[in-house]
């Protein structure tokens, strides 16, 4: 279905052949009933194919709702209300069962024999192989994400018979199985896709961009880019519990004030990704879920390429000067989790964890006096205009606090289009705010991206030989290995002492519901519509 789809196409796609009028009259009633849910979001779905270059984050939800993966995660109760996916529990989606060889290098998956694509064709191991080959071959984000689980080359994937799929790994890794449950490695109807591929476009990127071809819980009934996407339930889905709602309408409403009016009035049942401020104010009126984003921290990052920040006392002085509570209230409206003021010894491997720092200007001044810059210095603090909702109040508070200990801060606002280049690729911002969150929820994965030298989210140009070795050692190690926990604790100790990133707080993803229940938080921070129910 495309944006140009007209009413006739719509009728063909499973609408009863009855005249339009009853439908028109029935829809408003249905919207209140259990058959249709309306969701508003501020983000734009710009593609129905996650593997395409330029696909926006909001589009990942199509990968989740319309396609199946081999595996999925379980469900647990979430902090802040509602449910959350459960990283610790792996559940089957298209795979019926799977085995891991003793050396951990060979993974064998048995597909569900009754699984069918939307066109009625059986899901085979050949489809899985084609889809995985595609993910590791198209380049860009999907290829990087596959690599995180040790999935790098098409030769690693084998379709043994119709229902048996095998993955050969170069080294055993605890990240492989979870990486199969992220949105990227979804299973595409390879026969349909190949029929629409061309010599220039062997992976059918143009076709699948507009026309999903999967086996997932929902089909795309219509898509008007920039306006709306309508899901319709796939009645033959075998990937999990059959969704309760027949039709879900995702409407794009850019203005947060308009979204708030709609959800408060109850004309829409779910508002996804509302601002912290609205979440705080709506919490007593309707259901608001503010789930702390796992493995995600909003940080203040002193860049080691800037001389004063090579002095550990300067970094500690800043860490003691930061007004944590004020920032948490002003920037996050108390949504999320505080990450400061716990000086008990590090005895677990939970991450993000509270740091030993707290706001104490005297301590900050002491550290600065000990440093090579007792009289302070001047530094720009860079923020992204795209993320101004939390960065701007945070930056103002940091500016004020650092001014009190003699560090003169000037706030530099960088347009969204430049932000990534400046902060992550060129890593040239002396002092800046950063908000990395890892999809795979293990501390070593966070450290891999954010603390290893040269890695994308290490925007502080930090390098510590011990951290390098510890991350390499723990990245693929099973979490129940006795050597794992001590090394992770050591990692925490170094990182929180050296402070290339000063944790401020753990942000929350806010969702308001008025007439819907069953919302579940996912690490990819997009809406999984499958568990939703109308109330």
């Amino acid at each position, binding site marked *: 279905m495309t944006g140009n789809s007209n009413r006739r196409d719509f009728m063909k796609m499973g609408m009863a052949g009855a005249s339009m009028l009853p439908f028109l009259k029935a829809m408003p009633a249905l919207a209140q009933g259990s058959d249709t849910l309306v969701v508003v979001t501020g983000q734009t779905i710009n593609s129905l194919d996650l593997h395409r270059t330029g696909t926006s984050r909001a589009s990942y939800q199509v990968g989740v709702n319309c396609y199946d993966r081999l595996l999925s995660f379980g469900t647990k109760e979430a902090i802040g209300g509602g449910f959350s996916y459960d990283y610790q529990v792996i559940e089957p989606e298209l795979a019926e069962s799977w085995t891991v060889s003793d050396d951990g290098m060979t993974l064998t998956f048995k597909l569900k024999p009754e699984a069918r694509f939307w066109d009625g064709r059986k899901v085979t191991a050949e489809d899985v192989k084609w889809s995985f080959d595609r993910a590791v071959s198209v380049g860009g984000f999907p290829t990087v994400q596959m690599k995180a689980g040790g999935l790098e080359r098409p030769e690693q994937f084998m379709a043994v018979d119709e229902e048996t799929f095998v993955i050969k790994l170069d080294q055993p890794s605890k990240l492989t199985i979870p990486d199969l449950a992220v949105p990227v490695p979804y299973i595409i109807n390879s026969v349909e896709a190949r029929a629409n591929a061309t010599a220039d476009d062997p992976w059918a990127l143009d076709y699948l961009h507009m026309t999903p071809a999967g086996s997932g819980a929902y089909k795309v009934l219509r898509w008007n880019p920039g306006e709306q996407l309508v899901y319709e339930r796939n009645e033959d889905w075998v990937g999990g519990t059959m969704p309760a709602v027949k039709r879900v309408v995702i409407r794009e409403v850019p203005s947060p004030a308009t979204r708030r009016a709609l959800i408060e009035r109850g004309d829409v049942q779910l508002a996804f990704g509302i601002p912290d401020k609205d979440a705080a104010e709506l919490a007593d009126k309707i259901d608001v879920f503010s789930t702390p984003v796992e493995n995600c921290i909003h940080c203040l990052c002193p860049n080691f390429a800037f001389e004063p920040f090579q002095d550990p006392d300067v970094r500690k002085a800043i860490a003691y000067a930061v007004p944590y509570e004020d920032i948490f209230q002003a920037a996050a409206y108390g949504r999320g989790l505080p990450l400061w003021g716990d000086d008990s010894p590090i005895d677990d491997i939970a991450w993000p964890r509270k740091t030993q720092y707290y706001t104490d200007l005297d301590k900050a001044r002491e550290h600065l006096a000990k440093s090579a810059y007792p009289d302070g210095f001047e530094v720009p603090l860079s923020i992204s205009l795209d993320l101004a909702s939390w960065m701007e109040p945070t930056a103002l508070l940091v500016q004020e606090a650092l001014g009190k200990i003699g560090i003169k801060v000037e706030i530099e606002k960088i*347009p969204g289009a430049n932000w990534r280049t400046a902060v992550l690729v060129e890593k040239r911002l002396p002092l800046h705010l950063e908000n990395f969150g890892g999809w795979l929820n293990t501390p070593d994965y966070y450290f891999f991206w954010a603390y290893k030298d040269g890695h*994308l989210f290490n925007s502080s140009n930090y390098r510590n030989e011990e951290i390098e070795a510890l991350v390499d050692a723990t990245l693929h190690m099973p979490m129940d290995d006795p050597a794992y926990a001590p090394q992770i604790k050591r990692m925490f100790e170094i990182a929180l002492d050296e402070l290339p990133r000063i944790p401020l707080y753990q942000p929350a993803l806010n969702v308001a519901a008025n007439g819907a229940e069953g919302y579940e938080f996912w690490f990819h921070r997009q809406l999984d519509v499958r568990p939703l129910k109308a109330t």
Partner: protein
Amino acid sequence: MLSGYPRLRAILLRIAQAVPVVFGVVVISFLLTRALPGDPAVYFAGVMADEQSIEQTRIALGLDKPLPQQFAIYVGNLLQGDLGQSVSSGRAVATDLANRLPASLELTLTALLLAVLVAVPLGVWAATRPGTWVDHLCRIVVTAGVSLPTFFTGILLIYIFYYILGVAPSPLGRLDFIYFEPDHVTGFYLIDAALAGDWETWRGAVKQLMLPSITLALFTLAPVARMTRAAMLSALSADFIRTARAAGLSGRKVLFGYALRNALLPVVTTLGMVFSFALGANVLVEKVFAWPGIGSYAVEALVVSDYAAVQGFVLAMALLFVTLNLVIDLLYTVIDPRIGFVSQ
């Protein structure tokens, strides 16, 4: 050859004059988008991109080639009528524009129509009674209209008519989700629905159009009303009006037949200008009312440095204004026969 058709000849001449303008726009929009800070390859390579995948993306986008070559490719495609592919929407820019331009035009034209319907009578009324309460009312309405930013008026109207009173429909774009958009003929929902004879959808579209077009109309009201008032004042004090009155023509005939007709020229000129800035002011209204128009498209394209989309937008706007100016010039000759086409 065309000497027998002076008007046609003049139109063709005007179109020929527009060619260098359009070419200039093509060059400038190309250079400006490239001069924008920000690296589209980094942006489109996605959240976890490493250097290798950024490079792959750069090649896929054709941004690894030198600038003159990129420009040659762009112009070559343009000549074949191909505006290029938008990376963020993944579709031809021409398709995107064809979908979104009518949405903006429908909103802007409706707003202008509303503004004219209110502003011209208001201006005339105020001009015939300068210094009275009508004149002051006109001044207050006009000042309020320009001084309130459109997003504020928009949110205020939503708050009153949707949130509190519940008389306006959900501010969810061009049509509530219970309707289907009419078959695409012109892209204007009101026209397409009427052509299809689907009055249910037509009413739905009108309801959705109401608040955003009032918002925009309030904003565009001011210049039109002020210009009408000023032009009417000077027309009414002109000699020919005194002559007409002295000749015993009825007040109505003098006012509408002579004064207004003479005052219309500057009003039409102002309308042309108002139309252009209303299209610009659209962006904020589009955001507030989730209106899938061209303004929000251009802003999103700019934010992600989606070159083809930005260039396509600028070019479409340039063409639109060339056409608009031509139409306004033609209108002059209709309103005032003294303005000859040949003299231009």
